[in-house]
């Protein structure tokens, strides 16, 4: 496949590990009479690449499953558009890409700690300055 045949938009980030992460049990489907229990993904993260071939308008989703700290090869040499998408996945999900030419934070501050879109990063995980408790 030639790079130019494809619009390589990877919709990145996590498809989800569906497991017993803290706080999830309250929302198990079983609580409303739906007996189905979701299949857990084999690993914590799922990288999804949504590829589109313009001739014929065909779409493909490729998914790679990763454990924490397991790197994935960068696709920037094949699809230049993946540059910022991979930086975003690193920034918000903490997925490392091997061979990315410029893997730095993109949406959060350069000195930010943690990866906000991870499930163990709570909403309100950011300290609030000048709150009433000070």
């Amino acid at each position, binding site marked *: 496949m030639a*790079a*130019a*045949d*494809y*619009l*390589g*938009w990877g*919709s*990145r*980030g*996590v*498809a*989800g590990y*569906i497991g017993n992460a803290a706080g*999830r049990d309250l*929302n*198990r*489907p079983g609580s*409303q009479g*739906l007996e*189905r229990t*979701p*299949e857990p993904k084999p690993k914590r993260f799922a990288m*999804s690449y*949504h590829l589109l071939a*313009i001739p014929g*308008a065909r*779409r493909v*989703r490729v998914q790679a499953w990763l454990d924490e700290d397991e790197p994935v090869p960068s696709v*920037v040499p094949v*699809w*230049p*558009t993946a*540059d*910022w998408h991979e930086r975003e996945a690193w920034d*918000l999900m903490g997925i490392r890409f091997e061979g990315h*030419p*410029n893997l730095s*934070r*993109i*949406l*959060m*501050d350069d000195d930010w700690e943690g990866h*906000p*879109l991870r499930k163990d990063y709570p*909403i309100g995980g950011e300290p609030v300055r000048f709150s009433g408790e000070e």
Partner: protein
Amino acid sequence: MALAPERPRIYEGSRIPSPVPTMLQVPPDLRGSEDLLQVNFGPNHPSTHGVLRLIVDLHGEDVVGLNAVIGYLHTGFEKNMEAKTWWKAITYPERIDYLSFQNNELVFVLAIEKLLGLEVPEKATWMRMCLAELNRIHSHLVWLGTAALELGSISMFWYCFRERDSILDLYEMVCGARMHTRYFQAGGLAEDIPRGFFPDAREFVDWMPKAVDDYEGLVDKNEIWLERTKGIGLLSADDAIALGQSGPVLRGSGVDWDLRKSEPYLAYDQVDFSVPVYENGDVWDRYKVHMDEMRESTRIIAQCLDRLEGMEGQPWIADDRKVVLPPREELQTSMESLIHHFKIVTEGYRVPEGEIYVAVESARGELGCYVVSDGGPRPWRVKFRAPSFVALEATATCMTDALVADLIAIVGSLDTVMGEVDR
């Protein structure tokens, strides 16, 4: 009429910078030169369409280095949506791209409906299409007004905002809000179409093509406009595809690609419209694509109105009480409706487990929504493939061999909304 000089032909081969495709690096022979000046542009600058920061290396008037810094408007929409029920999360997407709000709402609602397997009544489909096209015109008008303003055509702004206001009046009549309407629900529309909508919308449809002629009359023969747009910001078809471009940027580079034609959603396969494509890949061609799209959108709206006028009295939302709120009047008389209402509002509905990618053609290009459901009442993961985010990646390629004054025209022509870039 040839006022402007001949345009240079679109370049051969690829101009995407290497190794970082989104960053223009100062060439080695210029590094350390005393003539080099690094200028910080933004994040607060009137012509950056929000809070875009560009770090530009200048050698005289020539741009030799460029780095776009984004994230100043990052608000964590995707994270927030994970904490809301499906029902409540619908309010978030429209705030992501605040100019193309209706299309953003549409893509998320379509994703929910696909996961639920919900059938939508015909009337809702056509009304959605009508509003989505109105919204496209709205977005293009704001783009045209502000982009022209940045190039010194101040009066254009007022003309564009005149028509924009009549679109917002239509929205107000239908949805009760001028922007961020939350009019699309999973299953259909929030309310029936008010009667006064049709005459006013007809009036708008009759007027809009004349207004587009007016805009073109303002700038099309203006020598300054021609000089500043023709042959500026070149992007070849191959580079546009490699950089993942879509929408007007892609079509301005000569690629005939529009999701409304190639992967029709709603009822786009039942309306008659054409997709404007221009060959030269410069600012001028992107401008022309926008103008033609406004005309085509008007044609689509007229066809939607024809269909909708014959659908009076038909349902506007699916009849599925597990997902759709019961009619208000039933709450007084039916215990069951009251329970359904209470359950949906407090707990939300459950969406079957699954993952799905839905894409629509928003005003800026392919707006994708990737949704993962774990079967619970909240989305497990929502990810938007924002067309503006991808369009900004092309800045470095378009800026190759450009002058600093072209920077404004080029960034403007990529039609980015920072809310959508940063999400």
